[in-house]
């Protein structure tokens, strides 16, 4: 890996090789970048991933259908509801299990809370990478409340394991609805405060606007998804365009990059999409709590030792990091033949090398932070 770049280094100019990571506070987990710079300007940054490759896809071939659910949590630990949901949806497509309406609503509620929690970490760490430590603490403070709510719902703070094939594990506990609504009231005020604190901060805008611009066609070509894609001005959200679960029942808008302070598709647009998405998620949770139907939370007669007919299915859910697709192949036994997770961070890493040419070293940090990559989603 190092040799590959070193070959190109000319001894007569100012070029040098920087090793950036894998243990570095701004790489968001264990990712290594080998950066070739000419002074402060990057000529090439090559991501070297795989430091958290935990063979999740191989393990899926031996656990049994239900047993894989806890492992899906670990695919994206910042927003663990979405891999849960993606995997459950894929198996439900393959088996034809119908999820009860109430369970679909609970999936939407938990998912949107989780999206808020994930974006809080994302925008908080982004501010930290740029050099402002306080917004991070604000984000973590609000996240703690969401963690409490989700803990009351399913007993775990981080790796939820809440979804089941055919429904969800637990119904709402007593008083949860009011606690959540109270939190959302507080949270909407917090968003205003957060905007005042950091989003429209002059320094912050200057650090992000016009940095690492990804044009729309390039974003599609490189397979960016989620807020990264929408930041580039492509209006696409799986929740609205290929609706799954209960999402067709809710009214919400999709924030798209406008180029508010610079070019469409710059780092600020990607950041701003996330901030606005938190407000939309809050709206969805309110609507879902209001419309929540009564009924069962699990489909009847889901076998414990589930056997799935031979076939294959792909499920798409809109995770906090964009479209997450689970590709599941069954061969008629009680174990999966192949489980594959297509995640947003993996493709987002692929765009860093072409995009990094000509960036300043400090802007590379802004680019990585604005793509919101999470190490296990890249490596699995």
């Amino acid at each position, binding site marked *: 890996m190092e040799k590959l770049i070193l070959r190109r280094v000319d001894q007569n100019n100012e070029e040098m090789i920087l090793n950036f990571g*894998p*243990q*570095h*506070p701004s790489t968001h*987990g*264990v990712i290594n970048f080998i950066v070739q710079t000419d002074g402060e300007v990057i000529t090439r940054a090559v991501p070297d991933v*795989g*430091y*958290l*490759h*935990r*063979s*999740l896809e*191989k*393990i899926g071939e*031996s656990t049994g259908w239900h047993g894989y659910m*806890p*492992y899906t*949590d*670990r695919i994206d*630990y*910042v927003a663990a509801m979405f891999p849960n949901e993606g995997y459950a949806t894929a198996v439900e497509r393959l088996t034809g299990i119908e999820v009860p309406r109430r369970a679909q609503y609970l999936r939407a509620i938990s998912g949107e809370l989780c999206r808020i929690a994930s974006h809080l*970490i994302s925008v908080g760490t982004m501010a930290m990478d740029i050099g402002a430590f306080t917004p991070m*603490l604000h984000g*973590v*403070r609000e*996240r*703690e409340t969401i*963690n409490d709510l989700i803990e009351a719902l399913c007993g775990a*703070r*981080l*790796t939820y394991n809440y979804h089941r094939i055919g429904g969800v594990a637990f119904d709402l506990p007593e008083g949860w609805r009011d606690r959540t609504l109270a939190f959302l009231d507080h949270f909407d005020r917090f968003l205003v405060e957060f905007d005042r604190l950091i989003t429209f901060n002059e320094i912050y805008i200057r650090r992000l606007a016009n940095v690492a611009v990804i044009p729309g066609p390039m974003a599609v070509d490189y397979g960016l998804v989620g807020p990264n894609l929408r930041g580039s001005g492509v209006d696409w959200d799986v929740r609205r365009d290929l609706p799954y679960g209960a999402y067709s029942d809710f009214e919400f808008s999709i924030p798209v990059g406008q180029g508010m302070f610079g070019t469409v598709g710059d780092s600020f647009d990607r950041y701003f999409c996330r901030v606005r998405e938190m407000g939309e998620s809050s709206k969805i949770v309110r609507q879902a709590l209001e419309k929540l139907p009564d009924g069962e939370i699990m489909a009847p007669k889901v076998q414990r030792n589930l056997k799935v007919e031979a076939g294959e299915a792909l499920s798409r859910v809109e995770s906090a990091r964009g479209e997450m697709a689970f590709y599941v192949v069954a061969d008629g036994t009680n174990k999966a033949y192949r489980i594959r997770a297509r995640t947003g961070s993996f493709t987002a890493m692929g765009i860093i090398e072409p995009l990094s040419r000509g960036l300043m070293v400090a802007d590379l940090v802004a680019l990585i932070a604005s793509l919101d990559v999470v*190490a*296990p989603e890249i490596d699995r």
Partner: protein
Amino acid sequence: MANKVDSGVGGDVTLFHTSQLDQLINMARENSLWYLLFGLACCGIELIQTGGPRADLMRFGAIPRASPRQADFMIVAGTLTYKMAERAKLLYDQMSEPKYVISMGSCANCGGLFQPAYSVCKGVDKVIPVDVYVPGCPPRPEALTEGLLRLQELVRNERWSDKRRPAEAGAGTA
């Protein structure tokens, strides 16, 4: 620094001239244990939350450092893969003595959920010595705080005379 003197009551009595100074030094050390931010996986998020406003690890004097050269101990938070194991060893070697390691979470303790994985190191103690193991998947911030308190206890009871680490560690567990 032990001197053997005859106190006149029969038999040898061992006196430690530095016993009080030990306490003083250890008091200073245990209350300013700085840790190396080494969030590897899921536990890394709980590590952030532990450093956050609610659990507030800083009230025990534990401040996160990004560089191993400035850190007193290392919290290995998360799954260690073979590819990462060499880097973890390197980071540990870069820390200055005295140094300690807290292994946070099942994956760092023994491989945890990822024991069947082909690419995961079955416990960080295969690579570097560990002082405190914190169980959980992931451990709550309270658990990690308890782990830090155990480490402080370990430091408090350390004596200057035998401060050199033994070749194999593994003194306390939480």
